[in-house]
């Protein structure tokens, strides 16, 4: 087992864990934490698998940097909407579907 593969495996576990948190939690901040953990998991899978048995590959490095920036933009947007929603409704979760 190469060290790249080790991180690919932890990426798999992180994605699964994050997915569970994303669905199970209702508090929107916790769901955002879960989203970010899922994101890190998929980045680790991307790099870990791409480099396993093949050595350093700079293309996925660039992809992950792009991915991290997209993730922080999404998180920031979500926090902006969340804070406005909290301010307008006083709730930290979403109302249930009808």
């Amino acid at each position, binding site marked *: 087992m190469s060290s790249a593969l080790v991180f690919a495996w932890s990426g798999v576990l992180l994605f699964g864990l994050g997915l569970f948190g994303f669905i199970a939690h209702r508090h929107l901040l916790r769901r955002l934490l879960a989203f970010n953990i899922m994101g890190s998991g998929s980045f680790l899978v991307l*790099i870990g698998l791409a480099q396993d048995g093949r050595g350093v590959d700079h293309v996925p490095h660039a992809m992950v940097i792009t991915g*991290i920036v997209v993730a922080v933009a999404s*998180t920031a947007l979500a926090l902006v909407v969340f804070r406005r929603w909290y301010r307008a409704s006083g709730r930290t979760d979403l109302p249930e579907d009808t």
Partner: protein
Amino acid sequence: MPWLDLLLGLTLVVTAGMALAARDMFRAVVMFIVFGLLVALAWVRLQAPDIALAEAAIGAGLTGVLLLDTLGYLRRPFGSRVDNPEERE
């Protein structure tokens, strides 16, 4: 078998689990920031120092600051608001 990497990978998963399971929101965010820094360490081990820098600065640092700031916003002393049990957990 790269034992150091195995240990780091395991710690990553445990930290993420603690961030998701923490009862206290503040603890959860702090654990998340720790998680981000550990991921940055993983990037170093994966010979990706560029990502490590970006992760530490943006992934852990900036996201962490934004989350902590939001947490502060949620935790301000409110006058009469008790209608939201999630908030006080």
